[in-house]
């Protein structure tokens, strides 16, 4: 069991590079951050910034072309990077960390019944009988608002929204310490999105899990997250509390992001960020956002470190460094 003060997740210089035909892609470049318990962290960034790779790095879901994978990942102060594949599988996967994956459409095995899949982690990890596991599956289904009738159905018999909820139920069933949601609502229409957001809000409120939301859609996570982390070109550029981040983003990139999102109450002109993110094949020396930043100065030619400011937020920008 964890003590109150221990962060549920802490990474130190986590790196994940991929070998491709064109060279080595430095997708996750020495990422270090920590999450207190019951935290809901939104990880925001555009496509290719490394946020999905971060998920893979944390969950150890590696493809076959990994070039570098090192650093530390502390789950409740235990460095799980050091665990063998087998220990990791039995002790960490789904017992401590689970995943709500991106494409709910294809995340369910088409030839197994939904209930069996949702109950599977319990059978595998906690050695419950099938009956007991299905009973628990019924419970989580009710949590996410899907009728337990659907436990005996197949994936194709569920609508998109229901499938997403089933996936969330599946991630909850072992009550892991940390749940990572990779773009949980991107594939859904607006109405279903709203439904799912309500489900997630309810879960966050009632349960003890910690959450990481990966998203490129800033607006949907504003209601859910306690903190926001912005990634750019494989690095963290800002990590702040929700209030700080949504109301007053400091990093030029975060500021531009927020400025590009329409808000309900204000009238504002939407801005955009010109240019493209740098290639991760050969990341530029110096600040990686410098090319697109309108507040750059000479110091930006060297890479700024990630530093914590007085108000507790972390920022990687020479503008705010002491």
């Amino acid at each position, binding site marked *: 069991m964890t003590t109150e003060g221990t962060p549920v997740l802490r990474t130190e210089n986590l790196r994940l590079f991929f070998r491709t035909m064109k060279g080595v892609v430095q997708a996750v470049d020495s990422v270090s951050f920590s999450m207190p318990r019951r935290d809901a962290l939104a990880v925001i960034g555009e496509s290719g910034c490394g946020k999905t790779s971060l998920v893979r790095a944390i969950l150890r*879901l590696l493809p076959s072309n990994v070039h570098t994978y090192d650093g530390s990942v502390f789950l409740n102060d235990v460095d799980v990077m050091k665990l063998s594949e087998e220990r990791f599988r039995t002790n*960490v996967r789904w017992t401590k960390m689970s995943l709500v*994956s991106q494409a709910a459409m294809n995340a369910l095995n*088409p030839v197994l019944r939904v209930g069996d899949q949702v109950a599977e982690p319990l059978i*595998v990890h906690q050695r419950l009988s099938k009956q007991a596991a299905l009973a628990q599956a019924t419970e989580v289904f009710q949590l996410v608002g899907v*009728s337990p*009738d659907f436990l005996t159905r197949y994936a194709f018999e569920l609508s998109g929204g229901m499938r997403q909820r089933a996936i969330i139920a599946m991630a909850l069933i072992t009550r892991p310490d940390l749940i990572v949601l990779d773009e949980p609502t991107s594939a859904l229409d607006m109405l279903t999105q709203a*439904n799912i957001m309500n489900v997630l809000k309810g879960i966050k409120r009632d349960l003890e899990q910690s959450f990481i939301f990966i998203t490129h859609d800033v607006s949907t996570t504003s209601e859910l997250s306690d903190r926001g982390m912005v990634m750019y070109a494989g690095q963290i550029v800002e990590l702040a509390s929700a209030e700080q981040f949504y109301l007053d983003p400091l990093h030029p990139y975060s500021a531009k992001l927020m400025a590009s999102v329409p808000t309900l109450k204000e009238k504002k002109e939407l801005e955009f960020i010109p240019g493209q993110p740098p290639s991760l094949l050969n990341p530029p020396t110096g600040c990686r956002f410098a090319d697109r930043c309108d507040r750059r100065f000479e110091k930006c030619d060297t890479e700024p470190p990630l530093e914590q400011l007085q108000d507790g937020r972390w920022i990687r920008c020479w503008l705010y460094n002491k």
Partner: protein
Amino acid sequence: MAENTPELVPAEEQKKKRRGASRATARFARYAGKRTLALLVTVVIGVYLTVIIANMGGYVDELRISELTYAVNVALSSDPGFRVLPAAQKAQIRDDEMARRIEMLGLNRPFIVRSFEYLWDGLSLTLGRAQFMTSNAGSSEVKNIILERLPITVVLFVTANVLVFLVALLLALSLSRRYGSFFDRFIVAASPLSAAPPWFYGIFLIMIFASIFGILPYGGMIDAPPPQTTLAYVLSVMKHMILPLMAWFLSYLFISTFSWRTFFLIHASEDYVELAKAKGLSSKAIERRYILRPTLPTVITSFALTLIYAWQGAIITETVFSWPGLGQLYAVAIGQYETGVIVGLTVIFAYLLAITVFTLDIAYALIDPRVKLGARGGSQ
């Protein structure tokens, strides 16, 4: 919190389930019926084509007639009573005898008529008697000749294919997790060996093991004289199966393993397989439930298709190994222009193919829930 999920009353639930079940059975029965009909039609067409080709517009009949003429002449000339008759009478008797024999063999009706009769006979395998060949038991009925040999071919052929299929599948499943390993690269490198058909490797194998080393037989199915006890008999058959099986393996195993392994590798990048890995399932469990189960329809289709194509390979392989089955029967029948046997063999193959396809369709329907429950927009 629950939205858009109507709760059904329990009693209605039950009724719905029962109705659904009987509807599913009805649907399945309809499907099976349609497939049977379609396959029967194709078999009929196939056999008719065979009949046409085998008689090639009556070419074989002409051959028969000339053979007949010769035989009649020989028969008549050897009869001393015949030779002293006047020429006109000789001619008359000769013609009568020809006519009698033609009638007996049914060669005097128009081809089209005969072809349809032949088609029906072909389909029911009542192909009369072979003119020169007999079965081992002594019968000259075409049906017996063929059916006697059928199990012999099936034994070798089904064993070979099932073995290759199972071994390849198991190997491929484990290889799909070991991408880039030595064994994986070995399979990739060895797969071009499929270029050569089994009989080709057979010749090499016979050369090495039978001729040079002399430890395995040159061919045939059983030692001569055949062993008396059942055990020795079975062992002898197995000994004779070793080289044909090896040849089959050399040709088909690597390519099978390779294509399954590639297929599973591609399949392993499906989202639900990734999620299964994230869920912490053991590799075995993932292989079984997330890779094999969903792809089972394709696996079975592939197996059936391989069977279909491999039936032909059996013919020459049997010839090279002198395995006394249907394939070898072919070679003999052709050499002696036994139209009946040839047609019969082709019909048997057509039936075998049809049965294979039918089994495949049914298996497909049973395994893929999308087909079973009639989902629209499932597979193609």
